[in-house]
């Protein structure tokens, strides 16, 4: 936009159209002029580079940057919370223990037992609980001040979790009955056989390719986009209030308010994505162990 405003008349004159737009731009430019006379302040929007920060140091040949450090921190917090919460278990739980129990119970009842039933939920509860809390703790760093980026916003974590989930549901299906698993996932019942020519390739791709890819992308993109949005709002606030000043500050106040609203929204997204990831893992396991669809 702005770069257009500086070279309007020479480029547009040949079109012969009324010079409405350039006039508007020059008017805008004179409005900005008092603050932007010599060097117009530049707005730096967020970019994909945010997720490839500079390498801080190398750990046994592996380059470590700040997102990795945040992941370590989230893991440490996770271990600490559960270690402290379950160190001295009491029959009548204290405040902290009941909080931890509430979280564990949520995964057990609302994700595990709801979808898998009591017996299968017991078998797969460890993996569902791990996925839920790992994703939750790594997501929530996205809105914690001074960390400000989710541990899940580089592809390594979502991809690892998606592969774990992928292996788990294939294992669950093959353990139960290899014949049933492949028959259910490749040749759904109740379809006349010529249709299988179309249905089987689709099912093959959707079960064994699309599932892990969407698991990865859903989490990764949610956290990436959330971070970019927050950066956009707060960068705009900084630009309007500090760089531009004057009446532009009003716009800055608006973008600041939106920044706060979206911070709250990001908390919701962080919890929701953890829930959805664990839930979808449970659904895939359920589909794999089902007798017949």
């Amino acid at each position, binding site marked *: 936009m702005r770069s257009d405003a500086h070279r309007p008349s020479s480029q547009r004159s040949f079109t012969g159209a009324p010079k409405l737009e350039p006039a508007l731009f020059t008017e805008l430019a004179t409005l900005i002029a008092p603050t932007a006379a010599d060097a117009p302040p530049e707005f730096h929007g967020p970019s994909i580079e945010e997720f490839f920060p500079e390498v801080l140091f190398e750990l046994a040949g592996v380059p470590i940057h700040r997102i990795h450090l945040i992941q370590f921190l989230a893991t440490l917090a996770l271990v600490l919370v559960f270690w402290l919460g379950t160190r001295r278990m009491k029959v009548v739980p204290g405040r902290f223990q009941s909080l931890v129990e509430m979280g564990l119970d949520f995964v057990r009842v609302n994700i595990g037992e709801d979808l898998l039933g009591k017996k299968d939920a017991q078998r797969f509860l460890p993996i569902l609980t791990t996925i839920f809390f790992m994703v939750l703790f790594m997501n929530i760093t996205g809105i914690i001040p001074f960390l400000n980026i989710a541990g899940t916003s580089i592809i390594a974590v979502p991809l690892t979790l998606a592969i774990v989930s992928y292996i788990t549901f294939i294992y669950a299906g093959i353990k139960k009955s290899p014949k049933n698993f492949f028959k259910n996932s490749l040749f759904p019942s109740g379809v006349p056989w010529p249709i299988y020519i179309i249905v089987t390739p689709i099912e093959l791709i959707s079960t064994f390719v699309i599932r892990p890819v969407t698991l990865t*992308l*859903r989490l*990764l*993109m949610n956290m990436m*986009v959330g971070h970019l949005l927050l950066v956009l709002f707060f960068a705009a606030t900084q630009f309007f209030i500090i760089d531009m000043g004057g009446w532009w500050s009003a716009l800055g106040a608006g973008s600041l308010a939106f920044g706060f609203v979206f911070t709250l929204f990001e908390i919701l997204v962080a919890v929701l994505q953890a*829930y959805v990831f664990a839930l979808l893992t449970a659904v895939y396991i359920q589909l794999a162990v089902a007798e017949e669809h």
Partner: protein
Amino acid sequence: MDATTVLAEVNGSIATVGYGLAAIGPAIGVGIVVGKTIEGVARQPELAGRLQVLMWIGIAFTEALAFIGIATGFIFGF
């Protein structure tokens, strides 16, 4: 100003426009999923819990398309 001139004036990443288009479908889809869930709960409030789980699964599958849209922009937009 005819269409070609306007198109010639557009600069920057066209991927943003692509993402806008890609978001239309999932937006409608999520709207339908949530709307129908509300309808179902209004008809049969005792099923609210079960329907909500199904709603989240439905939303997760639908919105995946939007995220594939974003990813495509990042992959091919640069």
